[in-house]
């Protein structure tokens, strides 16, 4: 189509031409959306359905043909001490890390918005823990925690807090020790988000509050924080979901142990499926974890809808 033709079309027969045009456009759109949607349906939709199906079946390594057992997998889950340990661990893990990342992220954002030489470099480099593979972070911190080879033990005994504790080997400290690593690895993302959100708070707003006699803290809590609230809400919800799903650190650092002291949903699903080869039980764990996550998914969608990200 040349431009002169296009101009002619815009004159009289516009309505008819446009409707055929629209139809063609619609066909093209459908053509374009079909391959990605088919892929998603096959790769995400089908596994979800399959998980639901497997969760009511039972198969073992010796007897791999699945038989229908109804809700027996769920019944055995809810009566096992292990499940409740996993649930409690997951709750502590998710809430603790999310709070840690949010608080540290906010603090880091405040620091990165002050003036100092090297600020640009620090803003760029602060993301390194976040972009580093979880396996590497896990291995590195295993060395840091090592009672005889790592610096943490030495630092603690130097400070007189005590030493000789094998943080990853004790059921009472292992979960918190892995959580510390997860916070270290994850807070840079929150810091980046909050730094950007902080910069978006209009200077005039801060100025006006200061002129009204508000102190620093007051300006922060009643002007800056409310303006950052939508970003904080979205980031917290995303962090919650990502943390709940996070597998690598726990797998590398403790494999869910000692005992079940660091077992969370993703590691439990993995272990039951690929070490115990009990797909039914593993899928039942999967169904429960999706049920828990759906609450946060709904909250996240509502938050996005409210902030207008879903509409154009």
């Amino acid at each position: 189509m040349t431009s002169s033709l296009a101009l002619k079309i815009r004159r009289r027969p516009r309505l008819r031409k446009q409707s055929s045009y629209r139809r063609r456009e619609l066909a093209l759109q459908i053509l374009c959306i079909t391959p990605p949607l088919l892929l998603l349906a096959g790769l995400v939709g089908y596994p979800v359905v399959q998980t639901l199906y497997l969760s009511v079946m039972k198969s073992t390594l010796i007897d791999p043909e699945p038989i229908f057992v109804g809700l027996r997998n769920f019944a055995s889950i809810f009566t096992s001490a292990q499940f409740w340990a996993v649930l409690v661990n997951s709750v502590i893990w998710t809430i603790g890390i999310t709070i840690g990342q949010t608080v540290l992220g906010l603090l880091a954002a405040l620091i990165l918005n002050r003036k100092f030489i090297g600020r640009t470099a620090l803003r760029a480099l602060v993301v390194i823990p976040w972009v580093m593979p979880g396996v590497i972070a896990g291995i590195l911190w295993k060395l840091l925690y090592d009672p005889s080879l790592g610096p943490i033990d030495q630092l603690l005994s130097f400070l007189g807090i005590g030493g000789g504790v094998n943080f990853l080997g004790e059921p009472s400290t292992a979960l918190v020790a892995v959580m510390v690593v997860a916070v270290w690895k994850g807070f840079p993302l929150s810091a980046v988000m909050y730094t950007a959100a902080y910069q978006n708070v209009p200077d005039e707003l801060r100025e006006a509050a200061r002129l009204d006699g508000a102190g620093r803290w007051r300006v922060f809590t009643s002007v800056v924080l409310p303006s950052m609230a939508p970003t904080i809400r979205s980031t917290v919800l995303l962090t919650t979901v990502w943390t709940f799903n996070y597998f690598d650190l726990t797998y590398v650092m403790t494999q869910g142990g000692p005992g079940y002291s660091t077992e969370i949903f993703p590691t439990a699903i993995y272990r039951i499926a690929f070490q115990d080869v009990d797909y039914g039980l593993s899928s039942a764990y999967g169904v429960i974890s999706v049920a828990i996550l759906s609450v946060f998914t709904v909250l996240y969608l509502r938050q996005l809808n409210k902030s207008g990200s879903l509409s154009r």
Partner: protein
Amino acid sequence: MTTASQPNRARRARMARSRLVSYGAAIVLTVVVFGPLYWMINTALKPADEIFSSPPLWFPLSPTFSNFIDTLDPVFIRYIGNSLLVATLTTVVCVLFALLAGYAVSRPSGKSGKSVIVAVLISQLLPPAVLLVPLYKTADTLGLLNSFGGLIVAYLTFTLPVAIWLLHGFITSIPAELEESAQVDGLSSFRAYFKVIVPLARPGIAATAAYIFFTVWQDFMFALVFLTDQDMRTLPLGVLGYIGAYTVNWGQLMAASTMLLIPILVIFAFVQKQFIAGLTAGAVKG
């Protein structure tokens, strides 16, 4: 505020204090972020006897690159190649599909937009561990275990939704009038999208591609399940090989970790600005 010099002095004192706080806080942040990374490089540069000294040494007494040289054997180089191949192919396939989807979803005339985006978001938040078992079983029946093809397809489960969502953010931020004027000039909407909008979204596409690349480069769980053949291992999986049954070769482990980080940092240096813009504007729009 009576005289001119007094508030000046007070202000200068306040500024000095504020600067002190800034630098103090910046140093604390630097130590928190880079302290562990320092230990990684410190260990990588130590000869074996210094690594196993207890109490540990805070800097190498006789630094050596032998850990790096020993690490770079053909097997490790093979892991690097595997990782590069898988991450690059996944990124290309994923971005292509996401761009196709973007035409239907993110254009002003697209009517299916919102519902597709909601579906995409929901699938983005599903636990990958849950998808793992069915995908593994399917790949097993199709004979796709221990093949990069199978792994790449599996990676699309969690990269495609993110890519569609990120690109959606970038593409909708391009003014619709640009595309409309291209259509007035006689381009079909399809061609207007690929000739006008997509080139304009190039920074966003780069950021999305970088994000997908990181995600795949880091992945451990899927590689662990899909690849059992030693030769097929990707880097994160291969690095675990340095943890032996009896001893851990910390020097090589840390040298390998350092080298694993470098490509990510190089890529990140290039796309950092768009990357952060995309995350803040697209995924977590305020």
